[in-house]
């Protein structure tokens, strides 16, 4: 199973996904609330949010499955249902069980190829691509959850799309499968495709995505590059380890820098850069074992932004200009 033969039928186009003032009301529930963001091509973008935050509804609106109450979700300015060749533009994985259990994997994909207006030989190509080549004649109902996810992915790839929209694609995958999916998404983005992936597996996402969009209660909470969100957004914080922690604190105090004692030999220094701290400690000849810049990890950011608490509640620092919503 390799991504080297991802099989471009034509060079993928880099197409952005644009969500503008998108809202969706289900009865009394506002699933999506004035959501606006853009997903850029050539990058893997994580769409993160707790259960019921409107992620799936947003993706379904993009694909024309759910009608928005207001606003638009477009692919390079056009609605999905208005695209000339939808499956060659967008491939989507939305559910892990979206096939007839009595249908063989190859038959399912041939059907998908026909429906999308593609050559049926594409079915075998994508089966190989997702590592199910040897299971082409097996009925989908006999597949494990991980195999079903792969079959869903194969369905999404049937038209060699420019954009991949994946809703919780790693559900049910084993560690090897998750690693493969990560490499595969990165490979596709590297080809210039747009990859939008929603997931709850934040540690996994942190290893995969370039950009992150965080939503809660249908509202945008943050968007930016992963580095911006997990580092710049949290403000700067340094951790220093020294056998002369007392003298280190004295030097910092004299320089007017805020610090916190973390342990006998550990000190946190807030709101400064390594370029500021390093020369200061060197000129005072403070012995250091370690000087590390730290930011909150994705999980901390996610939990703080989606818990209804401001980010500052868990991480001190100055909110950056990375598009953080206070709503």
């Amino acid at each position: 199973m390799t991504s080297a033969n991802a099989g471009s039928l034509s060079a993928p186009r880099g197409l952005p996904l644009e969500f503008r003032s998108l809202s969706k009301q289900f009865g009394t529930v506002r699933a999506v609330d004035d959501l606006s963001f853009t997903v850029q091509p050539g990058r893997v973008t994580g769409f993160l949010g707790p259960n019921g935050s409107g992620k799936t509804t947003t993706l379904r609106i993009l694909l024309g499955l759910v009608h928005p109450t207001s606003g638009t979700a477009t692919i390079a300015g056009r609605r999905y249902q208005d695209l000339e060749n939808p499956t060659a533009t967008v491939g989507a994985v939305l559910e892990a069980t979206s096939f007839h259990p009595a249908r063989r994997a190859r038959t399912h994909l041939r059907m998908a190829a026909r429906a999308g207006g593609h050559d049926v030989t594409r079915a075998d190509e994508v089966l190989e691509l997702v590592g199910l080549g040897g299971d082409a004649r097996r009925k989908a109902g006999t597949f494990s959850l991980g195999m079903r996810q792969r079959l869903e992915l194969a369905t999404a790839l049937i038209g060699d799309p420019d954009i991949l929209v994946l809703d919780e694609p790693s559900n049910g995958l084993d560690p090897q499968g998750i690693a493969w999916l990560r490499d595969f998404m990165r490979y596709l983005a590297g080809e210039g495709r747009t990859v939008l992936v929603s997931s709850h597996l934040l540690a996994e996402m942190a290893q995969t995505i370039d950009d992150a969009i965080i939503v809660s209660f249908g509202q945008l909470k943050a968007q930016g590059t992963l580095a911006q969100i997990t580092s710049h957004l949290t403000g700067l914080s340094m951790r220093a380890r020294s056998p002369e922690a007392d003298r280190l604190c004295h030097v910092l105090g004299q320089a007017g820098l805020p610090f916190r004692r973390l342990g006998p030999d550990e000190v946190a220094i807030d709101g400064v850069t390594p370029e500021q701290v390093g020369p200061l400690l060197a000129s005072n000849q403070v012995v250091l074992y370690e000087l590390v810049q730290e930011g909150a990890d994705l999980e901390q950011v996610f939990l703080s932004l989606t818990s209804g608490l401001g980010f500052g509640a868990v991480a001190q620092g100055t909110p950056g200009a990375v598009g953080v919503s206070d709503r």
Partner: protein
Amino acid sequence: MIDAIRAELIKMRSMPGVWVTFGLAFPLAVLICVAVLARAGGPLGHTFSHVHTLRQRRELLGAGYFGLEVLAPVMGLLCVTGEYRHKTMTTTFVLRPVRSQVLGAKVVATALWSVLLALLTLVAVVAVGLPWNAALGGVTSQVTDQLGAVVPGLVLSAILLGLFGLGFGTLVKNQIAAILLTIGGTLVLESILIALARAIFHYDLNWLPNGAGAALAGDIARGLGGGGRGAGFHLLTWWQGGLVMLAWGFVPLVAGYFTTFRRDVT
């Protein structure tokens, strides 16, 4: 649109339920052939005889209609309710986001498979009914002379009954409920309504789906699984039956399209 139709044909070909309807159509047609030849010999169970009258000839030729009454609608509703049952509608609408195209493709695919179902019942008649009738002393050409009166209507009825099932399935998305309602409506409810209408109002309730289909299929199926349509029951003319069947086929289809089919898929 051709691609969408071909995709729907692949779907139907790979659904076990569709093959079950085909598996039942042949023996049911044979069973009705047996009943027609038995009735031609006098009271049922007395003896077998070749068909004598015009009506008997048409009933032998259209023996498959009894099965089609039930199986064609069931096949039509499997085409759409199977999608909801197995949650494949999401994939279907992602692959073909214009929903009117999806429904149009299902209409064509159901019609084509219904034609095959009708032809299969004719194969049963040709393979079993006609040779047996000939063995009983009947003249095969006297039966086959009625091909023009029965077969086009039989095939058209099968198509419209299939579309009725498709439309009904579009309205009632739950597959089990839709099948039970279809079979119950076909075999039980229609017969009861006909009997009640005759007994109370002295009115031939001949515009219900199977009665209309029977009229279209050459004035057949009267009393042979014909949904309570006994002697003296007035069927519509074939063209009236055709129009009524057209309504039964397309009214639920259009209603289903504008209600459930266009709803959000969540």
